């Protein structure tokens, strides 16, 4: 069985990537082991998907909980990951608080000093600003959140067109904009677990894979890495 590990920074990415992997892999192929760390120690959050013995791929999804950097967390555990049979490791790192102008430099830096063991391939993906930048461009989920959130309504409220404005380069604080949009219909988005889950569940993943991917260089890069790892 192929074993892949994905390391993310926080809870938003944790819930989003879990759902994304399930959608990409399709039913019955992936055994997803979700863990989060506290004080340097991993704790099991949940196991989902196909049973371990029946799955084609096992994915370890680790939430580093913002306690340090994703890349360091992976490198510190490189030998452990090898020992446990993981052959492909992806780290998803936020560009924030660095400015957009640092995108390429940071992406290049992130991928330095990763490849010194042929048994495991480690790659880093850069998430530009926040995961919410990807949510903002997924136009079909708004009306699932609330029927009044039609695209013309969102455009009027947010001065942002989900269909044509690339959020990752145009919106400085995507989560704040999402909050403003949702608040206009008396909801809200303060990154609480229930709010993240509501959005993650409402997202149209076909739309993300095709339309949003075409608009977002960072999402496209991350999806390509998941595909290279065999999750598709």
């Amino acid at each position, binding site marked *: 069985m192929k074993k892949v590990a994905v390391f993310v920074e926080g809870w938003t990415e944790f819930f989003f990537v879990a759902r994304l992997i399930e959608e990409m892999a399709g039913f019955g192929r992936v055994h997803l082991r979700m863990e989060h760390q506290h*004080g*340097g120690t991993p704790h099991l959050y949940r196991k989902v998907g196909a049973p371990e013995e029946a799955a084609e791929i096992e994915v370890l999804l680790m939430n580093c909980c913002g*306690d*340090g*950097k*994703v*890349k*360091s967390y992976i*490198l510190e555990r490189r030998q452990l990951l090898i020992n446990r049979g993981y052959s492909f490791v992806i780290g998803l*790192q936020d560009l924030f608080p*660095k400015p957009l102008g*640092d995108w390429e*430099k*940071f992406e*290049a*830096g*992130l991928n*330095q*000093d990763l490849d010194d063991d042929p048994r495991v391939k480690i790659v*880093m993906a850069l998430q530009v600003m926040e995961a919410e930048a990807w949510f903002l461009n997924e136009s079909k989920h708004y009306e699932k959140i609330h029927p009044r959130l039609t695209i013309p309504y969102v455009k009027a409220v947010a001065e942002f067109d989900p269909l044509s404005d690339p959020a990752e380069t145009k919106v400085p604080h995507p989560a704040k904009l999402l909050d403003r949009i949702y608040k206009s219909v008396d909801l809200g988005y303060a990154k609480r677990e229930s709010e993240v889950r509501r959005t993650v569940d409402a997202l149209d993943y076909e739309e993300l894979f095709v339309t949003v991917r075409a608009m977002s260089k960072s999402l496209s890069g991350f999806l390509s890495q998941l595909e290279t790892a065999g999750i598709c």
Partner: protein
Amino acid sequence: MQLTNISYQENKGLPSHWRVERLTLGGISLVVGKNSSGKTRLLNVIDNIAKMVSGRIFATSGEWKANFERRKGQALEHQEYSLNVAAGTRLVVEESFEINHQRIMHRQESGAGFVLKKSSKSRVQYKVPQDQLMAVVRRDEIQHPYFDHLHRWGAGLCYYRFGSELGKNSFTALAPNEPTQDSNLLLAGLVDNAAHVYRKTFDRFKDVYKSLILDDLQTLGFPCSDVVLAFTPGLIFNGIPPMQLGVMEKDRTWPTYQGEMSQGMYRAFAICVQMNANILWEKSLRVGRELALGDAPMVVIDDIGEGLDYTRSKALVRCLIEKATENNIQLVMSSNDRFIMNDVPLENWVILHREGSEVRAFDYQNSKELFEEFQYLGLNNFDFFSGELFLRNSK
């Protein structure tokens, strides 16, 4: 007045020679380094020069050069004090003091030298005992007021050894004829007596002081509803019963006294008692204006976070940095705790690296390119230190 640079060496030419090259200190500095790289020794060097220029201790052997900045209205005044005391003796070989590159004082090995006179700017010749500092014995508010700020800096510097008892076994006692309220409290001499600092400061500032401590304890994850001073049962010194500090923890109905607290909790509590006292006393002396950098005593803490769990050590450092920044207190801490190092921005780091008897310092000023490049590697701050990435150019 703020200490901006310091260099030091001792026993020059001897096998026991030890030298730390000139390093830069900002408003907030975290001194990091491996064991025996010289972190504690550096802080002792700062503490020693502070005690010497304020006359708190005799001259001790070594060679110091310390630079200071003092805000004077909108202008910035630069002061430089140098002292060379012969190895293994208390005899001063050379001492000098400059303000904005103008020599204010110079003395030689014989003790002979001069100090500039304030009124006429003429040089007044003196000869002081060889084992005494000119900056101390010739300090005069009328004739030679130049040394006042240096003296005040030295007299005020508070040096806490966080890994020590920090006064866990020290008590306070109400002496006969003691004034009910002091107008000032010199905390530098009370770094190992939090109980006394608390009693004196509470007498003056009452619940304002207590609330600050309770808020900090809450932030640090020690929720308490009260700070208490109580007589210590069974102890009497010269007929006076000593008093100890305690806190009322929220899930207890009886105070936890200082002797019963865990070492980690007591240390965090003592630092909160001291830091808030420092701020309140200094503010009371400068009513009507915000504290400027260097007004409040410089705070130096060795081995910050030692004995605390990782969440609380991080919270304590954050709390201290926040208070120091808000009140313009120069704060220098040392640590090699990875969680603290990951939490404190690299801009505030001073990395010590020792090769033999030479200690080199790496900081944002002297290694800017390396510090900045590292921030694009996506690694924890700790990796900069543990991977010795700061040495890249040297290697």
